[in-house]
C-alpha cells in the first residue's frame, strides 16, 4: 500500500548503522505526515493509563498517535497535530468531530464508541492538555 512511503522514510531506520539514514531529519514517529518508524502507540504503551486515556489509546491512537493518519493530516493545518498535546480542544468539539466526522476522518458510530466512553475520551483530551505523556 504505502510501498514507497515506507521505503523513503522507514527503511533508513532499519539500516541505521549499516547504510546510514538518507533522510535522517525525519524523527521516528514524527507527527508531521511522515510514516511511523517506531511501534504505534497502543493500550499497551501506557499500562498505567486511566479510563479516558486507555479508551483514547484503544479507540483513537491508531490515527491520532504519532505516525497515524490523523496526526499526519492535522500536521498540514495545525502547529500541534497530536490531540493529546492540544490546548484548544473542548469536550463539545471532540464529541462533535468524532460523531459527525471532520475533514477526512469518518464519523465514529455509537456502536464503536458508546456515549459514555466518548465522554471519557473527550474529558481526557481536554483535561490535561500538553501534559507530558
Amino acid at each position: 500500500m504505502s510501498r514507497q512511503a515506507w521505503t523513503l522514510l522507514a527503511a533508513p531506520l532499519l539500516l541505521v548503522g549499516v547504510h546510514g539514514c538518507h533522510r535522517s531529519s525525519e524523527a521516528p514517529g514524527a507527527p508531521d505526515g511522515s510514516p511511523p518508524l517506531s511501534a504505534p502507540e497502543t493500550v499497551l504503551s501506557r499500562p498505567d493509563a486511566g479510563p479516558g486515556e486507555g479508551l483514547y489509546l484503544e479507540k483513537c491512537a491508531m490515527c491520532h498517535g504519532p505516525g497515524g493518519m490523523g496526526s499526519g493530516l492535522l500536521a498540514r493545518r495545525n502547529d500541534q497535530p497530536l490531540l493529546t498535546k492540544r490546548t484548544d480542544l473542548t469536550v463539545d468539539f471532540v464529541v462533535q468531530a468524532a460523531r459527525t466526522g471532520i475533514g477526512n476522518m469518518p464519523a465514529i458510530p455509537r456502536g464503536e464508541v458508546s456515549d459514555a466512553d466518548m465522554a471519557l475520551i473527550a474529558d481526557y483530551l481536554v483535561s490535561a492538555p500538553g501534559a507530558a505523556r
Partner: protein
Amino acid sequence: MAISSDTHPSPAARRAFAAIVGDDNVFFDEQDRLAYQDKFAVDDALHHPAGAVAPATVEQVQAILQVAGERGIRLWPISRGKNLGYGGSAPVLAGSVILDLSRMKKIEYDPANGTVLLEPGVGFYDLYDFLKTKGMKHWLSVPGNSWGSVVGNALDRGVGYTPYGEHATKICGMEAVLADGSVVRTGMGALDGAPTWQLYRFGFGPGWDQMFVQSNFGVVTKMGLWLMPAPESLMGMDLEFDRPEDLGPLIDAIAPLRREGLLQQSPTIGNWLRAAAILTTRGEWTDQPGALADNVITAIRKKFHVGWWGVSLRLYGRETVNKAAYAILEQEMAKLKPMSLRPAIWKAGEALEATGWTGTPLTMPMQNANWHGGRGGHVGFSPILPQSGTAAMAQFQRTYARYKEYGMDYQASFAFGERHLINVNAVLLNKDDEAMMKRVDPFLRQLIIDARAQGYGEYRTHLDYMDHVADTYDFNGGVMARLNRKVKDALDPQGVIAPGKSGIWPSSMMEQAI
C-alpha cells in the same frame, strides 16, 4: 438492481432489538444513520442505512436474525465498518439495518500451533497488542489501513505484505449464523469438540469456509486464522525504477521467484503517486485540472526521490536461508538496472521497522484521502491479471489512458499473489469538486468494461459496482450468478442478510425489482 428497502424498523421492531441487546446498543437517531454512511461515497445520496444494532454475543446475533426475519428487516453485517474505499460501514441496500459486530472482541490463541480464533470486532491493533502480551511469538499480516477488523478484512479478501499476506487463504475454520438462526461451524469445527478446528481447513465432505467469504450466506461470528511464526531474520531491498516501461520486466523478474518460493511474501509494485499522495497534496504542485502533466510528475518524483515504479522485497525466516536467497534476489534485481536499490537487514533482537512488512498495524497510507486537499476519499478498482509483464504493461497503458481521458490522477499498484497479480487502483476523490465527482462513476464503469474486454474481473469492489462486477462473471450465460442466487434462495429467501452483497440477491427481491 434499482431497489431500496421499505422495511425501516418500526418502533416495535426497535423495541424488539433493544430487548435483545439493551437500549444502549440500538442506534436509530439521525446522527446514527449519518455515522454509518460511506465517508468515501461517490454519490452521497446512496446506501443510507436505517440505523444499527450492536450485539455482543452469538446468541444475540441469532435473536436479531429472528426478529429481522419475522419483520422483513434487512441486515447489513459489519465487523468494524472500516472497509473504506469499498463502502465503509454502509449497506448496498438503503434502509438496511447495520448489524454492528464491533463489540464482539474475543480472542483465543494457540501459541503452539500459531493460530487464533477471533470474533469480528477484533481490530488489527487489538490483536497486535494481544500478541505483544504473549511475547510476539507470531506476527500479524496487516493491510495498508489497519484500523479495521482482522476478520472483516479476511472476509473481503484483503491483503497484507508478509508471507501470510493473502488473508483469505489463512482462514481455517469459521462459525456463522444462518438466516434461520442456526449456528454452523466449518471444517473440523463441524465435529463437536474437535481440537483440530484451526489446524485442518477442510473437514469431511465439502469445505465451506470460502462460502462465507464476500458473500451474504451467513453472519460470520468466529474465524480461525493462521499466524506467521516470528522470523529469526528479515532481509530484502527497496527498489525504485525510473521509467513507466520498467513495469513489465520487473514483473517478469519477480514472478518466477515468487512461484518458485524463493520469495514467499507478496510484493506490491506501486507507482509514484502511491507514495506522493501520502506525503503531499496536489495543490502544492499545480492548480491545473485534469490528469497531472508529466512535468508535474517529474517535479514530485524529484522532491521525494521516488521512481515511476517502486517495490520492496522481503525474505523471512532463518538467517542462513535468507542470506542465500538474498544473493539471488540482488543478482536478479541488478539485471534490471534500478535507479536505486537499498538493502534492508534485520535480525531478532534489533529494532524493528514499524511497517506492513513486519505486520505492524498502521493507518498512515489513508492520508491519500487528502491528496486533493479537502474532503476526499478513494474508491478501489482492482482487476485480477495473470503474472505477465506484457499483460501488466498493457493493462497499465490502457488504464492510464482512461485516467487521462477522464481527467483523474493515476494511483495504482500491481500486487503479487502466488500465480496472479491484482492491479489495485485507488481512484482519488475530491468531493469538493462537483465536476470531478460527476466523472467518477462513468469512469469506474468504463474501467470495469475495459477489464472485462480483456477477460479480467475485479476481486473486490465498492457497493456501487457489485452488480456490475458480478455481471462480468458471465460464463455460460451467467451461471455463477444463478448458482449464487439458488444458494441465497435456499438459505435466506427473504434476503435478510446483506442483500446485494457481491451482486447476490434472492429471487424474491429480483421479482420486487421487476
